C-alpha cells in the first residue's frame, strides 16, 4: 500500500533528503558558532550577563544572519516536502483509495471507523507540522491521501534514521520489551495515536499471538494503515477510530500500552486525559511506555532553543510545554508508586544499510533516539 512514484517524484524527495542532511550536518551547527562568536558576546556586552532563558536566546539569535537563513531554508524545506508529497498523492487519490479498499476488504474486521469521533479544537486549530489539512482532510469518499502523503514524505524528513519502513521506534520498543521481560508475551496491546501504523506493525510482528488495537482520530490514517498492514501480511491489528482521551474499552483490558511520538501533538489537558486512560486500561502486571523527544531539563539553554524551533515555526504548538513537563509525575498523579515508574531511552532499530543516529546525523528533534517514560501496573505498589 503506497503511492506510485515517477522518476521526478523520487528525484524531488532525493533532493529534500539530501538538503535535510546538508542542513543538519553543515548549516545547523553554524548556529552554535554564531551564538558563541557573535551573538552571545554582544548580548553580554549590552546586558552584563548571558541570556538567562531559552526565550532570551531566541531573541538574541533572531537578528543573526546565519540563523535567519537556516530558519528560512528549513521552513522552505518543510513546505516543499508537503508540496512534493501532495503533488504525488493527490493526482492518484482515487486509485490509492481504491487500492486501500481492495486490500482492506480481505480483512474488513480489522478496521473500525466511527463517524461520531470529532477532531478536538486543539487539533483542528493548526495544521500539525505544516501538513496542509493535517491528518484529517478528506477530498473524496474514503480518502487516504493525507496518510499516503505522510508515508511518502517521512523518509525524506528523517533521512533514513527511522528505517526503511519507518518502523525504527516500534522495532526499538519491541526490542526493549524483549530485553526487559524476555519471557513475557503480552496478550492485548494498545497503540495510542497510531497514525498509519508505522510503529504498530513491528509490535504485531514481535507478538503474533497478541491482539493489537491501534487507535487514532484520523480516518484517512486508519484506512491507509489498515490496508498497509494487510498488504504486509499482518492480521492481528485492529485499527480503530477513537479519541484517546476517552476510549471505549474496559478497565484493565490491555497488558501493554504504548505511544510513539504522539504526546507532543496533544494539549496539556488532553495529555493528562490520555495518560489517565492508559492507566485505567492497563491490566495488573502490565506495562505502559511512551516515546518522545527528550525533555528540556538538563539541557543548555542553547540546545533548548534549537529544539524549540518546531514549536514556533513548524506548527508544533504543544512541543515546548510537553518538553518542560515532568512526565513521570503525571503517572505518579495517576496512582502509580514511584518505584513502578521508569524513564529510559529507546534506540531506533533499523536495517543494516540505513544510517545510524550519531552526533553528525542528528537533526534537533529528528534523531532515531527517544526518551521514554512509563509505569508498571503492580497491584502491590499502586
Amino acid at each position, binding site marked *: 500500500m503506497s503511492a506510485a512514484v515517477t*522518476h*521526478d517524484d523520487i*528525484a*524531488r524527495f*532525493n*533532493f*529534500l533528503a539530501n*538538503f535535510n542532511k546538508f542542513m543538519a550536518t553543515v548549516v545547523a551547527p553554524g548556529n552554535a558558532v554564531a551564538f558563541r562568536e557573535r551573538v552571545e558576546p554582544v548580548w553580554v556586552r549590552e546586558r552584563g550577563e548571558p541570556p538567562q532563558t531559552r526565550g532570551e536566546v531566541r531573541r538574541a539569535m*533572531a537578528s543573526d544572519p546565519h*540563523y*535567519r*537563513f537556516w*530558519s*528560512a*531554508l528549513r*521552513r*522552505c*524545506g518543510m*513546505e*516543499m516536502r*508537503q*508540496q*512534493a508529497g*501532495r*503533488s504525488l498523492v*493527490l*493526482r492518484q487519490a482515487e486509485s490509492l483509495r481504491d487500492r486501500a479498499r481492495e486490500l482492506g476488504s480481505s480483512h474488513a474486521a480489522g478496521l473500525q471507523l466511527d463517524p461520531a469521533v470529532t477532531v478536538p479544537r486543539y487539533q483542528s*486549530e*493548526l*495544521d500539525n507540522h*505544516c*501538513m*496542509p*489539512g*493535517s491528518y484529517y482532510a478528506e*477530498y473524496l469518499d474514503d480518502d487516504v491521501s493525507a496518510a499516503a502523503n505522510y508515508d511518502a514524505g517521512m523518509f525524506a524528513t528523517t533521512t533514513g534514521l527511522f528505517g526503511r519502513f519507518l518502523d525504527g521506534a516500534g522495532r526499538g520498543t519491541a526490542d526493549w520489551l524483549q530485553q526487559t521481560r524476555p519471557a513475557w508475551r503480552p496478550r492485548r496491546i494498545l497503540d495510542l495515536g497510531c497514525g498509519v501504523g508505522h510503529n504498530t506493525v513491528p509490535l504485531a510482528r514481535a507478538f503474533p499471538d497478541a491482539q493489537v488495537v491501534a487507535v487514532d482520530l484520523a480516518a484517512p490514517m486508519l484506512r491507509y494503515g489498515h490496508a498497509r498492514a494487510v498488504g504486509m501480511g499482518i492480521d492481528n491489528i485492529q485499527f480503530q477510530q477513537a479519541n484517546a482521551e476517552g476510549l471505549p474499552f474496559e478497565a484493565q483490558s490491555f497488558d501493554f500500552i504504548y505511544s510513539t511520538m504522539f504526546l507532543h501533538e496533544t494539549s496539556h489537558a488532553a495529555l493528562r486525559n490520555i495518560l489517565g486512560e492508559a492507566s485505567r486500561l492497563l491490566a495488573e502486571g502490565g506495562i505502559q511506555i511512551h516515546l518522545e523527544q527528550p525533555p528540556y531539563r538538563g539541557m543548555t539553554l542553547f540546545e533548548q532553543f534549537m529544539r524549540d524551533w518546531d514549536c*514556533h*515555526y513548524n*506548527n508544533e504548538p504543544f512541543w515546548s510545554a510537553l518538553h518542560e513537563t515532568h512526565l513521570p509525575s503525571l503517572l505518579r498523579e495517576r496512582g502509580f508508586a514511584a518505584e513502578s515508574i521508569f524513564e529510559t531511552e529507546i534506540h531506533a532499530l533499523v536495517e543494516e544499510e540505513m544510517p545510524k543516529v550519531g552526533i553528525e546525523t542528528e537533526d534537533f528533534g529528528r534523531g532515531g533516539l527517544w526518551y521514554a517514560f512509563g509505569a508498571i501496573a503492580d497491584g502491590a505498589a499502586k
Partner: protein
Amino acid sequence: MNPQWLELVNAAASGKRPHFFGDADVDRLLAIVWAMAGELAVTRERLDTLERLLAERAVVQRTDLDAYRPDAEAARERGEWQMEYIARLLRVLQQELDALRATGAKASGD
C-alpha cells in the same frame, strides 16, 4: 493535472507563515529560489538517467538532441508541463492570495 488539483497541491498549512528576514519579501524570494533549486535537481537527475541509458544502449548521439524539433502534440505537452512547473515555483504567492481571498470572502459575508 487540472488547475483545481494544482491549487490543492499548493495549499498552505493553517497558521501564520513566519518570516525571518527584516523584509518578508526576502523570505518570499528565498522560497521561490529554493523551490527552483529543487526542481533543477529533479531535472538534472532525470537528464542524468537519460544520458546514462542512451550511452549504455548507444541509441542517441548528442547531435541528435541538438537537431530535434517538437511537433504540435509534443509542444502542447511541453506547455502543460511548464504551467505545472511555474505553479510549483510560485506556490507562496498563491497561498497568500488564497488567504487574502478567504479574508475578503469573510469580510463581505459570503
